[in-house]
């Protein structure tokens, strides 16, 4: 019975094979459902808008986009990646939201010398010793945002900061980035269970510790819950809250509203980033999807535009991998974030901004860029990359 099933699948697969040489296949694996699904959906929407702006043809080649949901499960993602690489033989892959998923998938994709462009998570090992000719980050290194926060806190003379992050490697990376630039004391350092819902215990600890600022890195729903409870505890008036852009993206602001007002955060892009590409992106995104884009969407859009530019540069010869790699390295496209280029580890050199949540003239909660923290900033790992 089981074997019979195999052959049914096999027969189905055969009818789909035999790809044409004159098109490009993109494999997109993202977290599209579950608690982290909001992020994957934003990236996908951004990518599809980019594809639409390219007329459905990235670099002039008819584009086949295969989209799959990894359900935020590494083993599911691993199987999807194997299928895309081995059966569908895609040219370029992208889409993964979370570091642990990418980590599971990466040996399959890069081992098969398939290009991978990360539209979000930027693991620091891939920026350093484990850098790879087929791996490109169109986003950031995982600790860039918290480096920016650390620099801001240090520059403004904060002395006693309370840190809260989930107890997982990503959280620890982020705190390491913060400490690289922030030299003051820590009023407390709390690692919570990933996916924790109620932060009463931690908020009580913060109240008792009397810090001069609270740094939070609580992605997704965790951040939403923390912000609501933070506001009710009435600490917002006395203690400034600062975080990475991931806790204050546009989707979160729209969902949480009031409690985020006034919070500071750092990111490499904002709605108001001032260049023509971004104005068009923001306007068209809102028109198409009925909501404002966030940085995840901007990264998805840039991933599509990066491919568009590189494929155009190699004149559609995507099977010439060395040429395609050089074209990707050149990053010949207009990014929504403005000035953009790749470092030798294929991670970006770009600006990071301080943003603050305000209420705009339409009554919406949005980020406003208030300062530039880093200009043409790279990452702490590039020296270890021998590429």
């Amino acid at each position, binding site marked *: 019975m089981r074997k019979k099933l195999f052959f049914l699948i096999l027969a189905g697969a055969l009818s789909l094979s035999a790809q044409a040489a004159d098109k490009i296949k993109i494999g997109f694996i993202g977290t599209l*459902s*579950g*608690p982290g*699904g*909001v992020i994957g*959906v934003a990236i996908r929407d951004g990518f599809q808008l980019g594809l639409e702006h390219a007329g459905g043809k990235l670099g002039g080649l008819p584009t086949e986009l295969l989209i799959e949901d990894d359900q935020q499960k590494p083993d599911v993602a691993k199987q999807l990646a194997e299928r895309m690489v081995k059966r569908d033989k895609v040219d370029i892959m992208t889409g993964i939201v979370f570091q642990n998923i990418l980590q599971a998938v990466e040996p399959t994709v890069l081992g098969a010398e398939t290009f991978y462009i990360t539209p979000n998570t930027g693991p620091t090992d891939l920026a350093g010793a484990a850098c790879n000719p087929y791996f490109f980050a169109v986003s950031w290194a995982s600790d860039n945002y918290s480096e920016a926060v650390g620099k801001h806190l240090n520059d403004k003379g904060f002395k006693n900061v309370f840190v809260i992050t989930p*107890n997982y490697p990503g959280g620890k990376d982020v705190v390491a980035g913060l400490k690289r630039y922030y030299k003051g004391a820590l009023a407390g350092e*709390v*690692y*919570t*269970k990933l*996916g924790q*819902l*109620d932060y*009463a*215990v*931690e908020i*009580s*600890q913060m*109240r*008792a510790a009397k810090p001069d600022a609270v740094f939070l890195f609580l992605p997704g*729903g965790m951040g*939403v*819950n923390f912000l*609501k*409870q933070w506001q*009710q*505890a*009435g600490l917002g008036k006395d203690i400034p809250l600062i975080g990475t852009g991931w806790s204050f993206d546009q*989707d979160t602001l*729209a*969902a*949480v*509203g*009031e409690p985020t007002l006034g919070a500071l955060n750092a990111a490499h892009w904002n709605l108001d980033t001032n260049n023509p590409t971004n104005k068009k992106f923001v306007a068209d995104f809102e028109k198409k999807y009925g909501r404002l884009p966030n940085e995840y969407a901007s990264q998805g859009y840039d991933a599509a535009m990066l491919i568009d530019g590189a494929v155009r540069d190699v004149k559609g010869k995507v099977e010439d991998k060395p040429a395609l790699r050089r074209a990707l390295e050149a990053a010949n496209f207009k990014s929504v974030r403005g000035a953009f280029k790749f470092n030798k580890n294929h991670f970006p050199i770009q600006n990071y901004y301080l943003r603050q949540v305000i209420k705009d003239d339409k009554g919406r909660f949005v980020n406003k860029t208030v300062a530039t923290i880093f200009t043409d900033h790279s990452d702490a790992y590039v020296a270890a990359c021998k590429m």
Partner: protein
Amino acid sequence: MTWILFLEQCLNGLQFGLMLFLLAAGLTLVFGIMDLINLAHGSLYMAGAYLVATLTQATGSFMLGVTLGIAATALLGMALEVLLLRGLYKRDHLSQVLATFALILIANETTRVIWGVQPLTLNVPDTLSGSVQLLPGLTYPAFRLTIILVGLAVAAALYILVVKTRIGMLIRAGASNRQMAMAMGTDIKWLFTAVFGAGAALCALAGAMLAPLLAVEVGMGESILILAFVTVVIGGIGSIRGAFIGAILVGVVDTFGRAFMPTLLRAALPPSFADAAGPALASISIYLLMVGVLFWKPRGLFPVGS
């Protein structure tokens, strides 16, 4: 660690425990009387939270939203019982686990279709949004204090209902000896439906109380469901008193584990090891509690029946 912080953490533990009690009370009765393992109990909690959030937005009043939401969830629960779950009472536990597991998936998909993937938010009503000064130096969010009071009131009401009234007698008889309860009345079906509806209403009340604190989102039921089960099992299946004691124990142990375990370990052990072990021990503290209880009392703290 000051005693003010200690007191505040006690309140946090109490508040968390009372919320668990609201969920565990319904679960333990359904468990004890109908002999049904209802994994979908968490879905009722989710449904309650969504309904309360939606109705509050529609009516503009938190009180009205909560009342209507609870009523709607109770009706939903009773409909579920009559249409679906009734057929599961006589099946073995394995079938019940699988069938209600399927219900969770269905509930999540349905919710996603109706409300979308974005979490809903419900803000605390203005009158309860501030903090209250309980003692000099001890301020506590008014809404969390309300939760504690509501939880205690429900516990007291349930106690009176179960211990002092005729219906309560039926319920207790049902929990300790199902056959006898069946033999006692022809209306046993009605009693089952009513108990299930009451359990659903308590779920909705928990959902309503937590909605202003937590994001109302798909899948919110699962994470709390396991805790509710742990509570029920610690207390002894079918025992309201057990659910109450179990819930407070779980709430306090979990809170203290998170609040004090890392500090205590750092004082006693080398920091590198303490930093790794602290969060781990905090996460597993309630499971350790449960295993400990079941080791000494294999049927929970307050076993019901013979």
